[in-house]
């Protein structure tokens, strides 16, 4: 099974990029509705720990994944309450909730470090997996990765082609207008933040139940922040977000693939490549009007409260 370097790196990119993709799609929904969740890393941790723990307790990995998504959503619900009801600073609240998640997951996760689960294994998609080159890269992955594939166009349609999407984006752009038309803004934003948190949790659960088959304290190692960065640099567009997530994954897969072939690498350069490459590519791709953040978000970054 010794494939080419390129195919191996891209396969690893899809595999490793899936958790970031889930979280980034979630953050896309959240930011489109005018709320930044810097605690995406925390949502992923909740999902990774809960997903692994519940999968081990129930013996059913799907139940674990569902629980992981719910746990990510629960943390996001707190975020929504604080920033929408209590009008706290969005950036600070996200970070505080990340630290909460870090503490909670390391406390309750200890019991599951040695637990065993029936982890997701790669499943070849009949037909598609025999496509030359692309088959092994995209269609010999786990079911959760296929779910992520499906979510990308679904979210695009939802945001840009459905009535829901118009309402959601209006909440993020200029919520006064939405209110004038008789919509209640807060429930829309609540829904967006919680849905985003669920996807972050799903990303974390993919990390623990499909990718690494393990739970360890702080195992997300900053992937939630990568997801937020990808969303921002990809202009909150689901297709570009998907590209950025997989690109980051591929850049991460480059180091071990090169090393296993005996190539000499520069530690610092290789550790920095994923970040630099992803940012450069997304900045180049994102130089269009669509990269403008929603008006509601601009207020967050300029320091005034979102109304």
């Amino acid at each position: 099974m010794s494939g080419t370097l390129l195919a191996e790196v891209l396969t690893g990119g899809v595999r490793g990029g899936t958790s970031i993709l889930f979280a980034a799609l979630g953050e896309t929904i959240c930011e489109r509705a005018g709320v930044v969740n810097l605690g995406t890393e925390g949502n992923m941790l909740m999902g990774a720990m809960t997903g692994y723990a519940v999968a081990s307790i129930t013996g059913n990995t799907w139940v674990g994944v569902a629980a992981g998504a719910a746990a990510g959503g629960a943390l996001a619900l707190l975020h929504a309450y604080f920033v929408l009801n209590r009008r706290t600073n969005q950036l600070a609240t996200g970070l505080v909730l990340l630290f909460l998640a870090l503490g909670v997951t390391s406390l309750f996760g200890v019991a599951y470090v040695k637990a065993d689960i029936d982890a997701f294994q790669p499943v070849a998609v009949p037909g598609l997996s025999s496509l030359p080159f692309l088959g092994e890269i995209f269609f010999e992955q786990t079911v959760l990765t296929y779910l992520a594939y499906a979510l990308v166009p679904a979210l695009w349609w939802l945001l840009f082609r459905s009535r829901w999407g118009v309402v959601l984006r209006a909440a993020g752009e200029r919520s006064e207008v939405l209110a004038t038309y008789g919509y209640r803004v807060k429930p829309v934003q609540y829904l967006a933040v919680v849905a985003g948190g669920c996807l972050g949790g799903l990303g974390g659960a993919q990390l623990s139940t499909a990718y690494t088959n393990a739970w360890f304290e702080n195992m997300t190692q900053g992937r939630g922040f990568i997801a937020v960065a990808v969303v921002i640099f990809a202009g909150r567009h689901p297709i570009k977000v998907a590209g950025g997530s997989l690109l980051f994954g591929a850049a991460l897969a480059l180091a071990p693939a090169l090393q296993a072939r005996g190539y000499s690498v520069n530690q610092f350069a290789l550790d920095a490549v994923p970040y630099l490459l992803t940012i450069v590519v997304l900045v180049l791709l994102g130089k269009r009007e669509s990269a403008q953040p929603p008006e509601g978000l601009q207020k967050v970054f300029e320091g005034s409260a979102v109304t």
Partner: protein
Amino acid sequence: MSSRTPRPSRALIALAGLAMVAGACGSNQTPAEKAASGSGGSTPATGAGAPGAGSTKVGFIFVGPKDDYGYNQAAYQGSQAVKAGVPGIEVLTAENVPETDEAVRVMEQMIDKGAKIIFATSYGHLDPATKVAAAHPDVVVVQQGNLIKGTVASNMGTYFGTVYEPVYLAGIAAGKATKSNKLGYVYAFPIPQTIANINSFELGAKSVNKDAKTYVVNTSNWCDPAKQAEAAKSLISQGVDVITQHQDCTSTVTKEAESAGISVVGYHADASTLAPKGWLTGSEWKWDDLYVDIVKTAKDGKFPGSKYNANYRVGYKTGTNPFVQSKYGPSVSDDTKALIEKAKKEISGADGSPFKGPIKAQDGSELFPAGVPADYATIEDKNKAFVEGVVGDMPKMN
């Protein structure tokens, strides 16, 4: 009976700090701080007045949680062995003690409770341990893994095992098990201890299989399971059929190997249940005997001048190495086990060592000249390059 000394809460520390400021007359220093600023060493003789003599309590501080399935858990288990192995002793333990002056406070609390023997089990606990030892000449403070530079106070010492010895033996199991002659090593950083492990693993494998090569991939992180998964997959795709690691968290690589149907050599802990088919053997900490002996030595008033009152390093050649070989998996043949027994005898002998020269580095230069290297410290220090047979470069750090 064991009681826990909880880590003091931040609020308490803040209060203590306030109290010190309010006091402002200079007498509020902790004894350790006094000693650090003032005079220190008295030199008690052995016997009843010796440091640690007659202690009925012993304190252990750990940098991490006691359930990390690695370094800290092993140290914690050692502390529990002291409870069982030394009649009438009470064991105080504190987890998550940072390598700062907070460690001084935790140790002071233990001393206040009557402990006269303290184990500071993390590398970075040396500075706080030195302060506490200076402040309490009647208390024995031993530190795990670091080296005291200069004179060693009569109530201090460091101790550690020789990690690469069981790794060498595991390398023999790997060299016999491989069919592709490709072994994989997932490591974190190119530090001397890790390089010694990788070299020792390859030398062990090569001693029974001259074609065995070790392929190395680093993760630049002690515990990033996603990077570990990718590292293992990359190695496996290159045809590696035995994999091992030097990581803090070990289950991802172990499970990855098992599900790929290849063999795995463990590190830090016995993970044989995670790889019932592929598990060969491994290396793990077993501090019980050493801890018990240190405590007994101190309790009997014999600590000053003893081997523990120094930078004590123990390996097969000098005693019982606390880094031991894990149990064998089902696929290891009796033939291989006999080879390992034989090798263990050889490297335990006066003229034996995994690093018995001549040993060449990757670039053909001589890493170890003919003969047996001087001592354990020299060996670790000389492991700054990979030996011949290791495939892959050390990452450049600049």
